């Protein structure tokens, strides 16, 4: 399988290293769209962005798991965040759809996982001073998965807390 034209992502900036060190640092995030909502992930955990290719099915894997993908010799599960995040809107796969491969720390081990995104916008600098905690009400997302919300001139960006998104055992069969 050829991984058609991975869209390069800027090298992980010092954003994570600076995490918690200085408050007014800028933060680079990868912004993407899912079910009509703009959300973002820290670039430090994003490995690459791939075009959508056929995935190997995982029978009885649950609604969360879309399938398996070979990323440079590694078997990477690709998941559908929609249901996990409490988003109900169905969305069609379009030419803009992408698979974003992340390296998420789970149980102290970095685990590769791909997520489906309706569209990837690009890398955005975020002023940490303009971050605020997620509001208790008013968003359709499951609040526990939201790390912070960034106010921008043209709206909001929801920054996901991936460790929590993948850390909860809610989906497992046991």
């Amino acid at each position, binding site marked *: 399988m*050829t991984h058609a034209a991975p869209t390069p992502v800027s090298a992980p900036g010092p954003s994570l290293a600076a995490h918690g060190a200085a408050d007014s640092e800028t933060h680079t995030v990868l912004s993407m769209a899912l079910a009509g909502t703009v959300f973002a992930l820290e670039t430090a955990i994003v490995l690459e962005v791939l075009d959508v290719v056929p995935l190997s099915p995982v029978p009885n894997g*649950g609604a969360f798991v879309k399938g398996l*993908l070979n990323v440079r010799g590694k078997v990477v599960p690709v998941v559908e965040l929609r249901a996990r995040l409490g988003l109900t809107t169905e969305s069609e796969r379009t030419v803009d759809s992408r698979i974003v491969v992340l390296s998420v720390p789970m149980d102290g081990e970095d*685990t*590769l*996982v791909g997520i489906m995104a309706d569209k990837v916008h690009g890398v955005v600098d975020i002023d940490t001073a303009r971050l605020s905690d997620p509001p208790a009400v008013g968003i359709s997302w499951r609040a526990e998965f939201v790390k912070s919300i960034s106010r921008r001139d043209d709206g909001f960006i929801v920054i996901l807390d991936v460790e929590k998104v*993948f850390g909860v055992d809610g989906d497992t069969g046991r």
Partner: protein
Amino acid sequence: MSSIQQPNAEVFLSEADDLLAELEAGLLDLETRPEDADQINRVFRALHTIKGSGAVFGFDHVAAFTHQVENAFQRVRDGEAPVSPDLLEVTLVSLDHIRSLLQNEDEPEREAWITARLGALWQKAPDGPSDADTAARPKNTAPSAPEAGAPHSWHIRLTLAPDVMAFGTNCLRLLDEVKTLGPCITIGLPDAIPPLAEMDPEACYMAWDIFLTTDQPRSAIDDIFLFVADGATIRIEPIEPDDVPQRLGEILVDRGDITATTVAATLERQRPLGELLVGSGDVSSERVVSALVEQRARAQGTATANGAAAGGTDGARSTIRVQAERLDSLMDLVGELVIAQARLTRLSGETDNPHLRDVAEDIERLSTDLRETTMGIRMVPIATLFGRFRRVVRDVSRDLGKTVDLTMEGEESELDKTVIERLNDPLVHLIRNCIDHGLETTEERVRLGKPAHGHVHLSAAHSGTQVLIRVSDDGRGMNCDAIRAKAEERGLLAPDAVLSDSELLAYVFHPGFSTAREVNAVSGRGVGMDVVKRTIDSLRGTIEMSSTPGQGTTVTLRLPLTLAIIDGLLVRVGRGHYVIPLSAVEECVELPAATRQAKDGCDFLNIRDTLVPFLWLRELFQAEPPPDAHQKIVVAAAEGARIGLVVDQVVGQHQTVIKSLGRILAHVRDFSGATILGDGTVALIIDVPRLVKMRPPAGSGDERRPTATEAHP
């Protein structure tokens, strides 16, 4: 740690680990056979090497502490003190202390305790001087006498009495006898032979220089010359390895063959010293050759000593120490190679180029061999694991006041290193359970008419591509009624459910289930049985328990030989490819056209007059496209039974590099892993036993919930 560790301290640490294991085994053997000289030597050697290497690598504290313990054992070795239970006890604690010290955990209190106890042992021993190091030397050896046991080089200058042959001594026999002690070089010194006219044919004029390397004590050499010593001049001197090899002149002067001034004068003439000395008649050529041999022996001694200090390598075993990470990365590379090879084989199959096919086949064969060799490197005998449990049994049984005999069998079975390492904790827990909960107290055993000593048996055996490890005891057995009561109380089991004993016992492994220790109302420690089960699960193994009330409990672990690569049968179901481990596959048959699809997803097939149940994988996997016209049945062995799996197509044999499914797919039970196929797509590896277990053909009560297709919360 008082001094800075050297960069290759890791080499020492892993070596020390082995030495400590060796030490432990020796000490435990001495508990049962205190007189065993081999074991005393083994303990002493281990202590000595820990001390020596520790000092070399900058573990000064370890070296200093070990020195004390070594001293104690030196007295034992020299027969000045007996092996007492006290000594063994202190030494075992010392062993733990050394282990802590190596991990940079200093415990001054424990050290003080050990020192005090060792001191007390001295006082008890007769004529115990405070410093054993000098007192322990046998008197007849030279001050710098080497230790027995370690090979050492000797220089023997043998000048026999002239009339020795007249008394019937055969000089050649004598020299041959020396040779039996070890490798030696003998140089005859004919200086004293007179001209023929003056010669007495029955007299011995020859002298010999003998360079002997032997692990025998000096007394063994003395014994050879015992009967020819009268009138003879026999000089036996140890050849000490020098830091700087001695010069030829120095050796000759040391021996008194020439004087230092002769050497100096000769050296001025700037020609090879030996040649000059011979030419000037100061020394015979034989004596020079002999001195040269000694020079070389010393240089070799130095090199050997340096080698031992630097690498700790044992010349006798031709093994090398390799970091586990390097092995892992080798395994990863072999895995990648196998995937690339599968791609090549596929490509060559698509072309008509016979040369390409030849190469592809060669590569396939080579990669198979390479894979097997690499796996072989990772295999470790299970004895390395079992050996550790002797101490566990000893300590736990002593803490609980029970006497326990531990027996083992099949320690030579080999398992992947990764598996061995991860088995340690579960097995320790199982063994503790045996002693703590399984075995009765001595009084109770006597009352029940059982042998007073409890018995714990560890066994390992190969069974196909699996290794079976059993931990059994002859204790009271599990109380099935209590487990049942507990399971019902927890709501895990309906009161009217009919379960076999083994099914009931499986509840012990249930997470959150109060494990056996509560059932037996004895307090325990360590991880719970659910953790044991989880570890075994993560190794793709299974765990079973069987128990006979009053006679004991047996826990059986079944583990795959390796975690990395298997041979698999590649099949297609719908549009997905799957791998069935070839070890489980018995045969492939055509699905009879007449066979109708049963509604419950399960049916029977008559294969050579045997009824074989089969599962429709299309249904289980919810494959979408319509089934192929000629479906096949792969007959696999699982859990002692045969089961057929209906697939759309059998693609072929495939070397499968197992990739873990990771945390995200931890809930997927039907598959044990995934692999990457030649075309780069991913195929799941079917876990046949589990697949069958999840869907018992008979439809009996199974604890599994409805298939995991339900939407997650």
